[in-house]
């Protein structure tokens, strides 16, 4: 016993080093696997508060470009509204009873990130605004990611520019499915893999969300095909998708909540067991 204690006292620096190094490696490995509960994340009052204070100041510098983006979106939505063929003149008398499938909440990105291989964003809505994990996040031009952690006032979003992210998407024209991943190289290009060899892929085709998962609604635009090739086994296409979004200047985002999500998950879990 005496010798064990002596050994510990003699090597206490080395043991402390080993302990702390091991602890950091555990955190690292945890952060590389999607859907493990994460202990180290920026959705807490300290880091969220610091980023929020800083964002309050820095958001003034790009007001003009953000206004431009919002005006473009208004422009697009208005032209859809005014040019729609069937006149809609029925109004909901009691708007409380009306409940659609998706509930949309607007939020602001207070920490953007696109230069590392596992990018995580921070937004300023959390549990207090009934935002929970696995809600989808989109911008006016395309999809952005999925929420992974929520504190009272902040949430972290796994961006599509993250090597662990995996979102179901399809070719708009033919409807062939694939999953959207990122190889970590360019913040404008993501990869759509596992698309059947039979699919008629053409450069310039639009890629949209497939609606197969309960996170995103069907048909949200993602990007266009910039190049494609068969994978090593020559069974599936690997498609490079050029994003509509400019991932480097994102500020205003929309969080999408699927009201039937619980029902869908319960049903799927029930069938799997």
């Amino acid at each position, binding site marked *: 016993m005496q010798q064990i204690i002596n050994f510990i006292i003699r090597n*206490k*620096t*080395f043991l*402390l*080093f080993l302990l*702390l*190094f091991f*602890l*950091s*490696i*555990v*955190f*690292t*490995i*945890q*952060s*590389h696997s999607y859907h493990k509960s*994460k202990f*180290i*994340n*920026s959705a*807490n009052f*300290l*880091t969220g508060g*610091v*980023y929020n204070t*800083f964002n309050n100041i820095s958001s003034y510098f790009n007001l003009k470009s953000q206004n431009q983006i919002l005006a473009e979106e208004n422009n697009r939505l208005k032209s859809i509204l005014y040019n729609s063929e069937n006149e809609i003149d029925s109004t909901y008398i009691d708007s409380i009873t009306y409940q659609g499938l998706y509930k949309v909440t607007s939020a602001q990105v207070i920490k953007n*990130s*696109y*230069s*590392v*291989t*596992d990018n*995580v964003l*921070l937004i300023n809505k959390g549990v207090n605004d009934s935002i929970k994990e696995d809600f989808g996040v989109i911008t006016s031009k395309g999809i952005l990611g999925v929420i992974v952690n929520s504190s009272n006032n902040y949430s*972290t979003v796994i961006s599509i520019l993250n090597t662990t992210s995996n979102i179901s998407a399809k070719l708009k024209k033919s409807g062939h499915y694939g999953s959207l991943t990122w190889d*970590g*190289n360019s*913040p404008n290009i993501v990869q759509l893999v596992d698309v059947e060899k039979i699919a008629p892929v053409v450069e310039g085709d639009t890629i949209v969300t497939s609606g197969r998962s309960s996170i995103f609604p069907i048909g949200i635009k993602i990007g266009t095909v910039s190049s494609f090739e068969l994978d090593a086994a020559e069974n599936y296409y690997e498609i490079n998708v050029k994003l509509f979004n400019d991932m480097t200047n994102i500020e205003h985002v929309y969080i999408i909540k699927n009201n039937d999500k619980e029902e869908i998950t319960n049903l799927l879990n029930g069938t799997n067991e």
Partner: protein
Amino acid sequence: MNSIISIHGIRFLVLIIIQVLICNHINFLGYVNPYIYILFIILFPVKNNRSLFIFLSFLLGLTIDLFSDSGGIHAAACVFIAYARPIILKFSFGMAYEYQNMKFNNVSFGDKLTYMTIIIVLHHIILFSLEIFSISKIILIFQKTLFSSIFTIILCSLITIIFSRESK
């Protein structure tokens, strides 16, 4: 003694704030960022309690990780260079370090640059290997290490030159 603690305490906080709010968003050429917070580890007094030093480095790295949602990569790199620092000190300063009377203000700039370069490159290699975490992308790891190291070394040398007190 109190002034030493307060100087290093303030340095700890200021470096974290600068790193998190400014340096993490530079993205020079798309992905090159300097990691100047390790100046805290570089400039920590030579005569110290090693356990405390390693623990402080861990805390520093973990705070940066907390802000940048990166798991434990900064913590791991910081703990490693904190543990390896005496060996690097001995290698770069030789006799001056052996006699235990060394101060960073009165050593030659060349020795200091060697010392900083070794620590920074070591830190960046561990950082980017853990960040990218895949052997098939080893080229990307070395590319990022090289460019970020150059950026960090330049910034760190500039900062130490600007803020060094003249020793007479």
